[in-house]
């Protein structure tokens, strides 16, 4: 498949048109999405109109931008003005937001063509895209397997070649884990680097938007387009984001890489072997790789599954049947709230709201939520200590390759464990990338993970590019 970088160059150079690229993407969706179900909504007319605007700019001699004519898929928890936005929840069925997410406006301003909204676990709560209120997405490599989650729709759309780039959101691994399961590149940028204005909130101290792409360079171009300060997001970093596109070919010569025991322990043998091969590839490219233990990371999973549900229980209080979305009528307002939420939310969302409400409730706050916040300090300090003498950390993205549909739906804790390696970077707010590196014994993709401190994206992209070339 043509990469986003190649396609944008062809559109800018008049070799091809945004319209023909968009028509090709729409054809691919029509042909493949019956089996994959990556999309909840496809806006063919809107996409073709956006493509024609790009082509008109080229015809006028104006530059549409670095993603000129590139079809993109948007996770359906990103608000769009002219497409419905559901967060895969029945409680938002039929809602069309009155504003668009900053990232959507920035993609369009860079020439990208949004073709539709992709499936996710309801409100981004899940690791398989099976918690969608509109049915699961399937892994394009094997449709009996899950694509991962919660950004499973965007990961599957990119993996199937329907679009070169998708946007996802990552609260505990929701970009990186599906990227690994689908064999694509997934980036969780530093917290605050990408505006969350217009992202439907799940756990606000952890949520971050990032790209899923078929190549490291495409992911870098996309990140550079969406990153940067936004006055509409009070958590948006004021410093200009570092250039990642310019760093992609920097290599790893002289870099110190830590292979983190806690980020491979418990993983399947073929996943561990892939990480070891990745370490060897980085060494062959001039990096020094040392083994390192960061025991505090083992506490991340428990802390996350107290902090994220606590924040979610607060964020999701807004779905009360008053201002938007579903309302189930009842005799008084409280009964209406209860009836609406009970009908509109799925099982996993209810589970997390109740878990968070419990962790925040009188008598348990200190023991659960308060403790989890202290553990968050331990995790951040442990990373800082590791980065005192290491440039990049290396580990697995997931303990296994993509699991079968239905394998973990009855056992929430088993599902949560698939995020064990991705969660720590969300707790610390730092950068991480999942990059495909080989396949498991079952033939399914394996993704290795590169982690760095805040704003260390340039060195992570450079290392990811080395692995991409060696894979």
């Amino acid at each position, binding site marked *: 498949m043509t990469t986003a970088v190649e396609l944008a160059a062809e559109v800018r150079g008049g070799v091809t048109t945004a319209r023909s690229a968009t028509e090709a993407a729409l054809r691919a969706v029509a042909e493949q999405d019956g089996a994959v179900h990556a999309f909840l909504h496809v806006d063919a007319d809107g996409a073709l109109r956006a493509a024609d605007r790009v082509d008109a700019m080229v015809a006028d001699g104006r530059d549409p931008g670095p993603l000129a004519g590139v079809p993109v898929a948007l996770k359906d928890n990103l608000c769009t003005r002219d497409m419905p936005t559901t967060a895969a929840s029945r409680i938002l069925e039929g809602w069309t937001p009155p504003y668009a997410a900053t990232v959507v406006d920035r993609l369009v301003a860079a020439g990208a063509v949004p073709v539709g909204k992709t499936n996710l676990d309801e409100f981004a709560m899940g690791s398989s895209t099976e918690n969608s209120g509109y049915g699961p997405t399937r892994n394009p490599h094997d449709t009996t397997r899950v694509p991962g989650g919660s950004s499973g729709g965007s990961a599957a759309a990119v993996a199937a070649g329907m679009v070169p780039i998708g946007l996802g959101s990552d609260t505990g691994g929701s970009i990186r884990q599906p990227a690994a399961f689908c064999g694509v590149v997934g980036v969780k940028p530093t917290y605050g680097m990408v505006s969350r204005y217009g992202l439907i909130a799940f756990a606000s101290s952890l949520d971050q938007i990032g790209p899923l792409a078929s190549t490291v360079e495409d992911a870098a171009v996309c990140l550079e387009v969406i990153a940067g300060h936004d006055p509409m997001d009070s958590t948006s970093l004021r410093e200009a984001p570092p250039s990642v596109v310019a760093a992609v070919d920097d290599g790893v010569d002289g870099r110190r890489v830590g292979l983190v025991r806690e980020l491979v322990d418990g993983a399947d043998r073929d996943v561990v072997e892939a990480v070891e091969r990745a370490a060897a590839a980085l060494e062959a490219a001039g990096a020094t790789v040392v083994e390192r233990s960061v025991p505090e990371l083992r506490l991340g999973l428990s802390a996350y599954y107290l902090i994220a549900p606590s924040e979610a229980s607060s964020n999701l209080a807004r779905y009360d049947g008053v201002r938007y979305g579903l309302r189930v009528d009842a005799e008084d307002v409280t009964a209406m709230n209860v009836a609406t939420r009970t009908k509109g939310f799925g099982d996993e969302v209810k589970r997390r709201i109740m878990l968070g409400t*419990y962790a925040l409730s009188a008598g348990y706050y200190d023991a659960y939520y308060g403790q989890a916040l202290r553990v968050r300090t331990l995790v951040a300090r442990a990373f800082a200590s590791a980065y005192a003498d290491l440039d990049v950390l290396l580990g697995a993205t997931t303990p296994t390759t993509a699991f079968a549909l239905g394998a973990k739906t009855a056992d929430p804790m088993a599902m949560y464990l698939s995020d064990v390696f991705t969660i720590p970077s969300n707790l*610390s707010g730092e950068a991480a990338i999942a990059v495909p590196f080989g396949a498991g014994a079952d033939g399914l993709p394996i993704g290795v993970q590169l982690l760095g401190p805040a704003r260390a994206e340039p060195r992570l992209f450079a290392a990811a590019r080395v692995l991409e070339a060696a894979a």
Partner: protein
Amino acid sequence: MSALTRADVAHVAALARLALSDEELDRYTGQLAVVLDHAQDVAALDLEGTPPTAHPFAEHTVLREDVEAPCLDRDVVLAQAPAVEDDRFCVPRIIGEAP
């Protein structure tokens, strides 16, 4: 730490404005207890003296200049509401309701 009971789950469901059937109450009690059991590794730590981190980077209150700026169009916003009356969101009876 006391084990999670069915009554605890019924209590938090009521706080969260969720109605659960008896079957759901049993199922959620079991599932949430497993998650809380796993969390004992965190709950049992002695972290006296370790400060909490609620946010990845030092948070400051962010204020914008106090100048008029366009906001969302009222009609566009109200068009998405389940019920509207006299340019306002319309809800069922509130006054006279039990607290």
